[in-house]
């Protein structure tokens, strides 16, 4: 801690005439964010532990809809990312920015509005997510009112306060950590705004303006860059400030830190499409994402090496200082995760790892190892400084380090093994070309022991956080009665910067060369670039441009090239009841366990049916491709099982499949559909482009009619007419079943007849009616005899008849273009 200056001399001036000012740093806001980090760290990790246990014991909270894996998993990820890591970031930013700028934060009021606003947002998330209020986009689940609050708090309070502090700083050069903070603020704003553009439908429901492929692209442009600019760049800023402080030596290479920064800003933003390999995303976008992901290897490892080499000559301190231990392990995990990330973006490897637990292990090595350990190290370093006392127990801090590290290893190693096993088992085929493991649930049952080990690892990690909480509280208890507030004195920066030119003239001044050559020589000295680096507004604009331009190069073609999403004539909008069912699917978080994307791989088409086409998703708002398969893919689920099977499956999944890890959804059987809300959903979908006609005026009647049909189907197969007070035809389960039975069936539907065909069919129909009336009253007339293609097989029948190795489009496609280069 710097020595306090308790008697500021007002009225002094510097040699350049600027007034000397007194100032102090606002450490109260740092204490607030540090405490919030700790509290949300406990909550976030406990929530993680809970969902890990629910996954193994699906009946643990049976019949409690708020405590299912689908609803709680987003709560865990949001708590870990935005509550724990978010508050950790703010803690680091508020402490380091003031000291790097030699200035107090611009506005104490904005600082507090930021703090309380952010905590309110987290509480709102903790309430809405278990209630099933979600946008169903990973890491962007929160509904639009909360999204608006995030935008105001993030940019209006935090961003403005930060930028104004930079503008009013007293240190000419903006240290590289500040660059990382700038990139974080501007990029997260851009990502958040564009991924959350929705049409609101009441306070707790909205539909994205994007659909299908485009929605998926936007989501993973956001999703990947949320990792990049929320979980990487601010933590690198943290590393570049707190590691030199803790080691008491400057960063190993400042040049490398600059290269690290610009490389990440230029490269990261392109890499998102690697999350969508082998999906219906266009091939070129997928390849571009892979290429830029591979390029990330160099700057990431450059940063890791820069961090570790900062400890050159100080490694002896690592053995005794728990703060440095946390930092070393954190940076090492950064290196591991950033090696693995590009590796997983390689298509061939991604084909194996995607949808498996491998991704979960990768994410947790980054989150627990990099984000967690760096945050813990920072908090331990801050504790004695913000509480102006000694750390209560170094031993306890060391114990936390070892328990946390062992906990991470126990977590990730079995999950890597589980992921690898899942990937291999899903694609394993025998000599005859049949799947070796046709039963999906069998593969899951094999990895459950590994999930148990994961629970043990998670338990250790949570215990470690608990130890830190004890240390934090005990340290806080030994704080002084009043905190000392050191006062510093310095003049503001003058607006005029001393000219570099006299000190940095062209070396060609005396040489007989053209003036242009001399100008070029001066330009090449890059003083202009130094000037940019110390002008916060210009620097911010340039960083924003780098991010936006790179994004536009991917986004614009994705949205505008029509051939990216070939339309399929038989793909129709969802019926009103199916729309309602889809919203239930979203609300329950089914995407957390089930994907809706059959990749063009033989093993996948063998298991699930025809691979997914971009044109199948044009009415999907939001898309439901998912990123994980704890349960089987549902893209071709329609008509595979009877409606009664689905009913019973919601009632008791283990009754139909003993090894199932799906929780029961009894509340869907016992809750009525709110038919009155359906017309609003239909109108919203229509406004976004769904070609509805009769549905706009008769949505309720159409929904009720279809519900009756589904319910009749269930009852005719032996299902109940009612459960308690709820008639089967009124239950939410019926709407969900209607939606599931529709999934993936449209491309096999017969095309609409041409006018000539309609006319011929009409004549045929009339003739048939006449013949029935005249000759044989018992003759059966097909219901859809008006349709000449009605005799063609539909649904799963067709799926079974398609040659497995063929990627040829179904005959009913009006226009088709394989989205991927081929099959595996």
């Amino acid at each position: 801690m710097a020595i306090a200056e308790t008697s500021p001399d007002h009225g002094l001036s510097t040699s350049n005439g600027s007034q000397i000012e007194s100032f102090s740093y606002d450490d109260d806001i740092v204490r607030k964010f540090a405490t919030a980090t700790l509290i949300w760290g406990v909550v976030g990790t406990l929530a993680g532990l809970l969902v890990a246990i629910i996954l193994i014991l699906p009946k643990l909270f049976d019949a409690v809809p708020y405590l299912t894996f689908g609803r709680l998993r987003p709560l865990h990820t949001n708590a870990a990312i935005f509550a724990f890591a978010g508050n950790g970031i703010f803690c680091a930013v508020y402490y380091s920015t003031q000291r790097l700028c030699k200035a107090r934060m611009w506005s104490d009021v904005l600082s507090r509005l930021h703090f309380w606003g952010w905590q309110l947002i987290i509480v709102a998330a903790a309430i809405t997510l278990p209630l099933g209020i979600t946008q169903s986009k990973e890491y962007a689940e929160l509904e639009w009112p909360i999204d608006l609050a995030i935008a105001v708090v993030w940019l209006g309070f935090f961003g403005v306060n930060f930028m104004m502090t930079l503008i009013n700083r007293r240190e000419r050069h903006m240290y590289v950590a500040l660059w990382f903070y700038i990139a974080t603020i501007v990029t997260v704003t851009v990502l958040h705004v564009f991924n959350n553009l929705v049409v609101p439908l009441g306070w707790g429901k909205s539909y994205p303006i994007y659909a299908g492929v485009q929605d998926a692209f936007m989501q993973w442009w956001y999703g990947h860059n949320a990792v990049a600019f929320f979980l990487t760049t601010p933590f690198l800023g943290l590393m570049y400030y707190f590691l030199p402080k803790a080691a008491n030596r400057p960063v190993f290479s400042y040049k490398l830190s600059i290269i690290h920064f610009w490389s990440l800003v230029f490269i990261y933003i392109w890499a998102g499409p690697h999350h969508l390999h082998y999906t219906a995303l266009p091939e070129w976008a997928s390849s571009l994402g892979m290429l830029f992901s591979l390029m990330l290897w160099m700057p990431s490892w450059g940063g890791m090496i820069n961090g570790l080499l900062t400890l050159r000559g100080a490694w002896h301190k690592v053995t005794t200082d728990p703060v440095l231990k946390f930092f070393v392990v954190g940076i090492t995990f950064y290196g591991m995760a950033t090696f693995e990330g590009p590796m997983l973006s390689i298509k061939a490897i991604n084909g194996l790892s995607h949808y498996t637990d491998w991704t979960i292990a990768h994410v947790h090595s980054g989150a627990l190892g990099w984000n967690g350990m760096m945050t813990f190290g920072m908090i331990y370093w801050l504790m004695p400084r913000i509480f102006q006392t000694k750390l209560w127990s170094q031993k306890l801090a060391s114990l936390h380090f070892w328990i946390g590290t062992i906990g991470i290893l126990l977590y990730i190693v079995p999950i890597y093994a589980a992921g690898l096993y899942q990937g291999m088992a899903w694609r394993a085929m025998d000599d005859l070309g049949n799947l070796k493991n046709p039963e999906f649930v069998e593969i899951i049952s094999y990895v459950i022991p590994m999930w148990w080990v994961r629970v043990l690892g998670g338990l250790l990690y949570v215990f470690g956080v608990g130890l830190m909480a004890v240390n934090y509280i005990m340290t806080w208890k030994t704080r002084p009665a009043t905190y000392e507030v050191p006062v510093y004195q310095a003049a503001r920066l003058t607006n005029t910067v001393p000219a570099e030119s006299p000190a940095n003239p062209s070396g060609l001044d005396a040489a007989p060369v053209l003036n242009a050559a001399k100008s070029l020589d001066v330009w090449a000295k890059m003083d202009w670039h130094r000037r940019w680096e110390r002008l916060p507004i210009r620097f911010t604009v340039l960083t924003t441009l780098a991010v936006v331009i790179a994004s536009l190069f991917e986004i614009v073609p994705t949205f505008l090239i029509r051939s990216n999403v070939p339309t399929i004539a038989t793909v129709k909008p969802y019926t009103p009841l199916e729309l309602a069912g889809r919203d239930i699917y979203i609300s329950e978080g089914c995407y957390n366990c089930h994907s809706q994307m059959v990749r063009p791989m033989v093993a996948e088409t063998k298991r699930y049916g025809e691979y997914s086409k971009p044109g199948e998703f044009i009415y999907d708002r939001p898309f439901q491709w998912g990123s994980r398969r704890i349960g089987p893919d549902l893209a071709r689920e329609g008509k595979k099982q009877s409606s009664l099977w689905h009913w019973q499956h919601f009632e008791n999944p283990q009754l139909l499949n003993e090894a199932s890890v799906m929780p029961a959804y009894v509340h869907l059987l016992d809750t009525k559909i709110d038919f009155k809300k359906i017309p609003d959903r239909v109108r919203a979908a229509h406004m976004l482009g769904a070609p509805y006609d009769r549905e706009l005026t008769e949505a309720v009647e159409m929904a009720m009619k279809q519900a009756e049909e589904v319910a009749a189907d269930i009852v005719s197969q032996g299902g109940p007419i009612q459960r308690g007070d709820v008639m089967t035809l009124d239950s939410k389960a019926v709407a969900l079943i209607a939606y599931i039975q529709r999934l993936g069936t449209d491309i096999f539907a017969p095309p609409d007849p041409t006018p000539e065909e309609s006319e011929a069919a009409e004549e045929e129909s009339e003739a048939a009616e006449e013949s029935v009336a005249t000759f044989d009253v018992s003759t059966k007339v097909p219901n859809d005899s008006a349709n000449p293609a009605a005799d063609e097989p539909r649904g799963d029948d067709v799926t079974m008849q398609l040659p497995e190795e063929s990627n040829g489009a179904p005959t009913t496609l009006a226009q088709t273009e394989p989205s991927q280069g081929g099959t595996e």
Partner: protein
Amino acid sequence: MLKDVIRAIDYSDCAEAALLLFVFAFGLMLFATLRLSRQSTDKFASIPLSDRVEDPRDE
């Protein structure tokens, strides 16, 4: 009409153009960084080590 014009533009070279843009911007940044003097980088790197205002503060 604007929509049609925009849709009619050929975007097939976007990926290559993006790579060129990246290489140019990255190259410029690399050049600028490598031109930094040792004196400057040492000074910048030491900024976090002290919470006091150092004089002279200008580069």
